[in-house]
């Protein structure tokens, strides 16, 4: 199994590369379309169903600046696939170059335990956890915008900050049960 490494290649000038990993391969396409609208920097979007990535393209694959795991909460499989794919990432990625994006979090049919386990996973890896409304165009645009905000930092395009610094501010925390706050 080949590990995907964050620092094995040189960065391109004024460009950023993002890898979207989604088991269902439904949301990633529309998200990619929204991501490449960015004009200030050249954004290369790579799509994958799961990791590891195939060996043959290894040579001409650019350096990946941000890996995004898209997890659809309505299926258990989506979460399991992401969990398995995480093992194919070099530990260097977890210094701020991985983030999770969750869809369908407000769906009634989603068991709360599943969201909790995603939260726990993201918190244990010190990664940010973003929520996205994948069913509306405005939601997709917003999700792309937020990913770009992170991507620009992880690609080193924002002066005075680094991926690790940002992830320290945005990493997911496991909230205790909000239902029963101990107020009195």
């Amino acid at each position, binding site marked *: 199994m080949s590990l995907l490494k964050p620092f094995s290649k040189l960065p391109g000038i004024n460009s950023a590369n993002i890898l979207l990993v989604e088991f269902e391969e439904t949301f990633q396409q529309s998200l990619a379309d929204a991501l490449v609208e960015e004009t200030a920097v050249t954004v290369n979007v790579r799509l994958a169903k799961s990791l590891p990535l195939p060996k043959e393209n290894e040579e001409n694959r650019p350096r990946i600046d941000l890996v995004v795991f898209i997890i659809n909460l309505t299926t258990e499989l989506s979460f399991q696939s992401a969990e398995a794919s995480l093992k194919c990432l070099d530990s260097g990625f977890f210094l701020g170059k991985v983030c999770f994006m969750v869809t369908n979090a*407000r769906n*009634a049919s989603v068991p709360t335990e599943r969201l909790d386990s995603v939260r726990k996973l993201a918190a244990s890896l010190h990664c940010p956890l973003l929520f996205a409304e994948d069913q*509306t165009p405005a939601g997709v645009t917003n999700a792309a915008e937020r990913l770009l905000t992170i991507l620009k930092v992880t690609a080193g395009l*924002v*002066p005075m900050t680094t991926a690790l610094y940002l992830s320290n*501010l*945005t990493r*997911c925390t496991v909230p205790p049960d*909000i*239902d029963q706050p101990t107020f009195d």
Partner: protein
Amino acid sequence: MAASFNRSGPSDLETSSVNDQSVSSRSSNRSVRVAEKERRKNEAEDPVVLALKYFNDVEAGTPVNGNDEVEKQLVLVEKVGYSRGLSPDAISVMLEFAMSLRMGTTLCPRVLKCLIPATTVPQEAVVRAVVWLGVGKIPATTQVLFVKWVLTVFDMIDEKDQLRAIYGFIFNFVTDENLCPFICHLLYLLTRKESVRVFRVRKLLELQSKLGRQPFLLHLLSLYKVFCPELVTLSIPSRMRSGFKNHTSPWKSALLFVQKRNGSQVSSNVSLAVTVKDKTSTRKRKHHHLELPKLSSVVNKPAQTETSSSRKLVPLTQLHSFAQLLENMHRIELPSQMGSLLGSSMALHYLDCVQDESALLRLNFWLGYSLHEEFLFCSDGGASQYSEEVLQFLNRLLSTQHFLQEGFSSSEAFLYKFLTVWDGALYRPEILGLLSNIPVIPSSQIGRLLFEPLMQLFFTSSLFFKCGLIECLNNMLLKWLTWHSVYALEDDLDISLHSHTSINMTLSGFKDSVMELVLFVGRLASVGLQLEGCHSVLLSFVLDFYETACDTFLKYGLPLVLLPPSGVFYPALLASDPVSVDRLAYIMYRYKANLTSAKNQEKVTEQAFHISRQTFREFNSYIAVMANYLWNSRVFHPGMGVQLEKELLLKSNVPEYWTSFDLIHHPAFMSYAIDFHRKCWPGRKDMDLNSIKLSKPWGWYLEYLFTQGFDGLKLFFQGNVRQQKAQGDGQGDSTPTQAR
């Protein structure tokens, strides 16, 4: 046949409305009646009517297995139920058929599932079904299914007086372990002051000791406590799990579908009922899931209501002016659907000044339930196809909160949950608006409930969101401070922020919360400015916030002064737009006013608060930095906030680097200096900005700047900087006056 079951038809409606209906609404009544007749004529040939006739007449004990007839008819009814919804008569027939178990228990759940009302549910049918529930042959799961159905369609039951009349009968079912959570919910919706009795309270407490502190029991008990505090001595936690968790999404989505479908057909009729208080509108009030119900009363004939209680109740619907409201303040009958209060200004006036907490409790309950159902547990995964409607609802909620000048606790609880799954864009203005209305949160909770989710959103979102959030937090701070200045008790240091929020807070607790908030914004702003390259729009919103924060003592009487962090101070001081520098000067001027007046008060009264030396020291160093940068041309002076090594500065080859940020060379003011230079010495060919630095032109230059509208600088200058006339070189030297 259907006609014979039409108990709650227009005739009933008519008698109830004769008392207080205007002529115009009576004529609209007539048009409804005509339409009804037309409809009935069409139905005569309808196969559904035949199916209903079958279910009405079928004999008890008819076998189900192998009975094609019943299968055929049921499929027909199901089809109509799921597509168009069933008429009130059809519902009573089918409910009666199912609950009487005429054809055994197998068909019962299936029938219940397709009971989707098209308009309303006749109360009598429900009452009869509840009676069948008591007969006791129905399996437990079906019983639960029935009560769930009643809860789902509760808002569509045409009247509730008879249901309230059998309150005691329904109450008996709480002892049933399976039914208890659902019965409690139903009782919650039906409870009135008269229903609260000692023996019922005792029964509930007994159940609680048996089942543990179940949320459904606590909710019902809390309502009892509100009505009769003397009967319930139990302490109820001030915040509980929001709402009863009786999600019935299959019904809800079916109901929604039917209502949407019918909505297009009935919409023409809706336009007839323009006024909120038109009684005919009650029959078609719920076409959309988030539409506010029309204000309607549960009491139809005011003359003969409440025989048990001595006082006469007046429904809110019958009040048309503020004067009437004042007269009847003590005997208002609340509507059965609390959500309708949001739509009526009269009701809001009542809510605002009413002492009785039950109205707010019920409103909060309804609101919490609908917010939860619609935003956190969407059946369609949140596709906002009803967004127009949702926007209207949220805006109505916002305007209600603005009217009452406080947030509802249920919307607060909802927000805490929603923030953890928010994408930062969905209904952004409305959510941020609601967020700025939340009451003060204890400092021990504020980080977990508010700051953590907000921080994750803030740093991953666009500049636009960052500005919006800072503005929202500014409004939140403003509201908290305003509440404080209104509710603070004069003689005591303790304040009670209860009004309608049930939090009692000591002054020190309140101070801690405000401090947490200001420090949090300080953190967000420092790092946000750094990430966004000190964007001047973001800086402007941050300075907005500090314009509120600098005046906590003088304007709002809160003994607390918190300075901006250097991550905000320096970006503002070194900003490239003069407005930011000017605003910073104004903010520092206000800080000085607050600090000196606090100092004076400390001298006069012993009881006054103590501001730490650290704050004064920090403030003085800020003032010194500002004066040295802007007036004295002493940048990077040793001992100040920003220091650079001398060698490094020399290496940079900037000539006279120490003057780089004075009012002449500051990037924000350079253009003013050039303009002044031109005006002052129109003939001069070569521009020498340093000549402004001479004593006389420097004074003129300041005057010139002050005439350009930099009032902040002017106030700061007058308050802090003494002009010293040095004799030898004639250059003015200014020293900052210190606050301590």
